[in-house]
């Protein structure tokens, strides 16, 4: 079999790398890789090829030979003509598609977990600082399991009378209203949610709802109600107990690592 020319080899490496990045790696992690990352890796591949062919003058000449031949050699006339037609046609289509493209709305840069205020309030009443407030019923978990169970059960009731159309029967953010809300309701079964927040953060999010978000959290888009208008303080703490009880995740706490 004829040995592949250096030019063809380089071309195969280039196309192969792209296919590998886009489809093999993309397929493995089952999400498409962002275009900018692909472009970066492809840039590296091109630099590597250029370094390789330019280390020796003979290599560079070998690399150029097929290009040279295609341009002037009469035996390559057919290939030359095909290329002379294909390249302009490709550029014609490509520039047309760019110019005729419809403008799309700008994406909204939304911070899903914006920083909370320093103070935790319920309506206008100050409960304490965000850092220090703990769930007043959490201690029952150890002290009085019966009372704890009653609070969890109350939380279960509150959840299913108010929260489940959006956050779902299974607390997975997939209630029957959920698919048609932007942003999507929080998924409490996500291991990155409950363990990353203190109970006081959840109290803040529930009590103040979407409109209570700072601007970085795009309060104007959220459908999360201001629950302090509907629920008592106790009900909010109870529903927080229910969230961790049902999912099995523990809220983040401070000062226990001794």
């Amino acid at each position, binding site marked *: 079999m004829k040995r592949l020319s250096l030019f063809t080899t380089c071309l195969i490496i280039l196309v192969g790398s792209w296919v590998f990045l886009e489809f093999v790696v993309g397929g493995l992690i089952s999400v498409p890789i962002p275009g900018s990352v692909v472009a970066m890796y492809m840039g590296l591949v091109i630099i590597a090829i250029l370094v390789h062919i330019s280390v020796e003058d003979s290599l560079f000449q070998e690399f150029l030979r097929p290009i*040279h031949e295609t*341009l*002037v050699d009469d035996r390559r006339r057919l290939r*030359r003509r095909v*290329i*002379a037609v294909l*390249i*302009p*046609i490709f*550029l*014609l*289509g490509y*520039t*047309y598609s760019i*110019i*005729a493209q*419809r*403008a*799309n*709305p*700008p*994406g*909204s*840069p939304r911070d899903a977990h914006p920083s909370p205020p320093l103070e935790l309030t319920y309506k206008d009443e100050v409960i304490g600082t965000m850092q220090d407030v703990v769930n007043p019923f959490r201690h029952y978990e150890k002290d009085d399991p019966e009372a704890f169970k009653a609070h969890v059960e109350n939380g*279960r*009731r509150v*959840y*299913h*009378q*108010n929260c*489940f*159309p*959006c956050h*779902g*029967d*299974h607390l*997975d953010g*997939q*209630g*029957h*209203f959920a*698919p*048609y*809300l*932007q942003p999507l309701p929080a998924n409490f079964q996500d291991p990155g949610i409950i363990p990353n927040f203190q109970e006081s953060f959840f109290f803040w999010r529930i009590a103040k*709802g*979407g*409109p209570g978000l700072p*601007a970085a959290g795009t*309060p*104007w*888009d959220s*459908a999360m*109600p*201001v629950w302090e*208008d*509907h629920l008592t303080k106790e009900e909010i703490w109870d529903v927080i107990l229910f969230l961790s009880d*049902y999912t099995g995740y523990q809220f983040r706490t401070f000062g226990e690592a001794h």
Partner: protein
Amino acid sequence: MIFCLTQSVKLHGWLDNVLYFRSANLRCRFAAVVLFLILGVFSMLTVADAQNAPEASEKGKEVYEQSCAHCHGTEGRGDGAAAENLLPQPRDFTRGLYKIRSTESGELPTDQDLFDIITEGMPGSSMPGWETALSANERWEVVAYIKTFHSGFKEREAPPREISLEGKIPFSEESVEIGKGLYTELGCIECHGNVGRGDGTSAPTLTDAWNFQTWPANLTQGWTYRGGADTEDIFKRFIGGIAGSPMPAFEGDSFLHFGLTSEESKRLTELENMDEMTEADEEASNQFYEKMDEAVNVALTRAEGTELTAAEQRMYDDAMKIVYEKSWHLANYVKSLMPEERPEPAIGNNVLRSQYVQGGLPTIDDAAWETSEARYFPLVGQIIVEPRQFNPTIDAISVKSFYNDTEVVFLFTWDDRTYTTGDETDETTGKPLEDALAVQFPVKVPQGPTAPKPYFLGGGRLPVYLWHWKASAPEQVTELTAKGINAAEVQEVQADLQVKSTYTDGQYQLWVKRALKTEDKKDLQLESGVFVPIAFSAWDGSNGDIDTKRTITSWYTFVLEPVPSSRRFVYPPLIALLSFGLLIGLRAAVQRKNLEKLST
């Protein structure tokens, strides 16, 4: 089974030949071993194929109480904490009435039916699918536990009679045409309406076995069919009925002319429509009635569990053959009423684009609307502010738009089963209940993606600009300004909006035209190419929607699509020519260099 036995005989014979046992005793023992092995394999196969739930256990109770009881109640009465807000109500398991079954009328569901509903959920209701949340074992345990709520499961002696899907009539235009005729003839139209939008004349009066209001399915929305929208699913709902709901099973006297052949049925309809009958006609029709009575009686006898005689069985089979045939045609017709999938919501780049036209804008019944692509905005219940709507009856609104140099026109379309114009009043507020629509824009379009928008139900600092339309004033849209969901004010200066609306076969169409620019500072000013937030609210008067009790969408995006730049015909050919020129130039340069090389 027979196959297995013959296989085992063959296998035995083969082994016998190969090993050639001389001792009868040995042969006997060998046969016993083979038989034992085969029986073992056979029983394992049966276990793997089992469609029955295990015995009820503590485990099933635990899973039920953790995942189901909040709606269905700890005692299975459908009275959990969430139930008061839900319609359709969570199933009460104690009465043994199950809507979605693969079994005949009057039968309980199979275990597999229960398992499938738990796995897939019930579209169009608040029952989710539990496939990812519970393991298959857990779901089977729940099936077993649910069965303990109704004694009928324990008492039943024979397995339930399943609906046969044999003789399916494939989808074809002819079959759809026949089904369409049956749709009227069998009376489907009375609840489900002329074109299937659930807007029949008896639609608002229906209640279920628990006396809760229930709406007939909107047959054009396959994604809301509780038991799935495959032709087979639809067929099973006909034959088995939807227990506990007003949807009857096609059998006995709930099926038109049960027991008559198609020709006889046609003839009887003719006779019934005659003004005057001859004696012979009367005789003929009486014969038909007798035949029908007999068939209905046989069906009743069968439903009671009494064994049928051979003649009765033949009569029943003949009657059901026609029911099955007609049901397949009807299922094909119903299938033809819905799009294959629920349309995609207008999120991401799929924004509502108003198309530019030169000259006059299309009127409400203009054919030009057909050329425009609709955008689809699913609605959800408003559960943020009291009074809340947990059980919306309006599924979505679809919108099209055109604009020219001075005006913009919208066509809003949505399904509503009833035409309600305020004849009845709300009990708590005393206000008239009526159908309505509101379209919401910001007064000022936010500049850039990080600029604040008004809150989508108001409440922030930024006001919204609203169009409010009511069914009682079908040719009028009122302009409002609001800073909160309960703080809308009618604008003092009303722009000159042109409005037309229609209500046909369970569907509203609203046509609104406005100038792109107005003098009023409280109005939204429109400009081509600017992305404008847009949101919708809809009220269904007959569902008790009033004030904040309504359906809503979150913010979506609308744009007057700019006329495509004419540059698209200039630059691309230029670039193509340029690249061609470059290639030629490159070749010429290389050739020249070669010549120089040769000459030196």
